[in-house]
């Protein structure tokens, strides 16, 4: 479904992503883990079309991507951002946020689609006309996920979707993402600094450091400690150390 080869991203003189590549099958999930500044979010933004300064090859569903994406690309690929406080328009109701993709893509039956989307992310219908500031962090992230699903995409790019949430809410959102993937046969690319979260959702994990993908490892190998690169081993050690309390 997604194929990336030799992707470079430069911001002026800064070479943020240095020739990475990975592939994700349809209905699969790929996780990218790394520390701040490793370039993991930059990869996602280049893939989504938010950052045009890239070179290399990126293909979605067999079609090579260009700098400028058409409307059909945005119907196919959607993104969920880290901060649910910042990714919703502060003066628009949930209803308005969910209607926006429908208007842009000229889809009909707003009433039914919006109610169904709310039900799908387990939000009560009463939240439909609320403003973001009247919702909790977890509810906002559900709205952001519902918005991403409105145009019925095939690929969902998830940029640290749970790191601004409390752990109990994180569990709910991760379960929701797993359910949605199963129900809709979605393809995920998940970026996170949390190794456990990535390994939970994704069977394949790419570890990034300094703009390079230093290792691609299956979640099973990662759990078992069959890692090659020292950075992966270090991240794994830090993550498991706390679990054995």
């Amino acid at each position: 479904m997604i194929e990336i080869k030799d992707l470079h991203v430069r911001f002026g003189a800064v070479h943020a992503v240095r020739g990475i590549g990975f592939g994700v099958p349809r209905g699969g999930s790929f996780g990218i883990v790394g520390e701040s500044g490793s370039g993991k979010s930059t990869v996602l933004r280049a893939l989504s079309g938010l950052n045009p300064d890239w070179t290399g090859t990126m293909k979605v569903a067999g079609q090579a991507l260009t700098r400028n994406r058409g409307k059909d690309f945005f119907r196919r690929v959607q993104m969920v951002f880290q901060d649910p406080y910042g990714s919703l328009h502060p003066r628009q109701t949930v209803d308005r946020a969910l209607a926006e993709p429908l208007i842009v893509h000229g889809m009909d039956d707003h009433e039914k689609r919006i109610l169904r989307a709310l039900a799908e992310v387990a939000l009560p219908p009463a939240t439909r006309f609320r403003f973001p500031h009247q919702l909790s962090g977890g509810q906002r992230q559900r709205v952001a996920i519902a918005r991403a699903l409105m145009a019925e995409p095939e690929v969902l790019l998830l940029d640290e979707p749970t790191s601004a949430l409390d752990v109990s809410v994180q569990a709910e959102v991760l379960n929701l993402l797993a359910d949605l993937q199963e129900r809709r046969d979605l393809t995920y690319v998940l970026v996170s600094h949390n190794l456990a979260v990535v390994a939970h959702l994704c069977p394949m994990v790419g570890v990034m450091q300094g703009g390079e993908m230093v290792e691609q490892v299956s979640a099973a190998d990662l759990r078992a400690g069959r890692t090659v690169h020292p950075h992966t081993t270090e991240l794994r050690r830090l993550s498991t150390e706390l679990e054995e309390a």
Partner: protein
Amino acid sequence: MQVDIRNLSIAFPTATGLSHAVRNVSLTIGNEKLGIVGESGSGKSLTARSILRLLPRGARMTADKLSFDGIDILKADESAMRAIRGKRAGLILQDPKYSLNPVMTAGAQIAEAWRMHRKGGAREAHEGAMDLLAQVKINDPARVFGAYPHELSGGMGQRVMIAMMLAPDPELLIADEPTSALDATVQAEILRLLEDLVARRGMALILISHDLPLVSHFCDRVAVMYAGRIVEELGAGELAQAKHPYTRGLLECLPALSHPRPRLAVMKRDPAWAEGPPGAPLA
């Protein structure tokens, strides 16, 4: 040094009456590492800040007892509070980006803190600051001394912040989510540094965090807060024996690397948790 908190309640007036953010909290802190854990809005920060009387405007604080080394914080005047704040008790916040002055070099800020509390000359302050930077294990103190906060990484900034707080030789350090904005590798280093400083100086430490495994790994004792109340207190390494359903829930909803779970447990919140033990007066 001992901090005594008995029946502390903190409330905020709202349009519909008082809203209680902290309810009947009692804690004693000696020379130890105490962790306070809870989710956002649990009242963990307010509880710790009440010791310094650094509460948001409009907050109403009541307690049967709130004392720092025998000083009654409820009755102390502002000058007495200033003698505690930043002097005998320091506060480290989550993001050094916001708590350091952006137009002063790191060294100048540490030197100023040093001079304010030790009353020395400029040269002594400079030496004191360099010494503090070395104590927080900065390899190249001279470079960091002359650097502005925006030139420092998150971990380096947090070290500078800790160095500043150490300047007056405090007896208590309150660290409010000191590593939440940092990468895992840096987080481990900062915690190791704090641990080392606490052991060497005989300081007390209150570590506030949302990360239960982290805190229980690091602290001697952990208080778990929910809806303004302490629902459970645990000793170090007793996490596996936690009894309260909320504490258990916090642990079970975490995805874990070592033991995969096909589906994460979702916490079912019981309204009774917020009510406290039967018979307890509602503040």
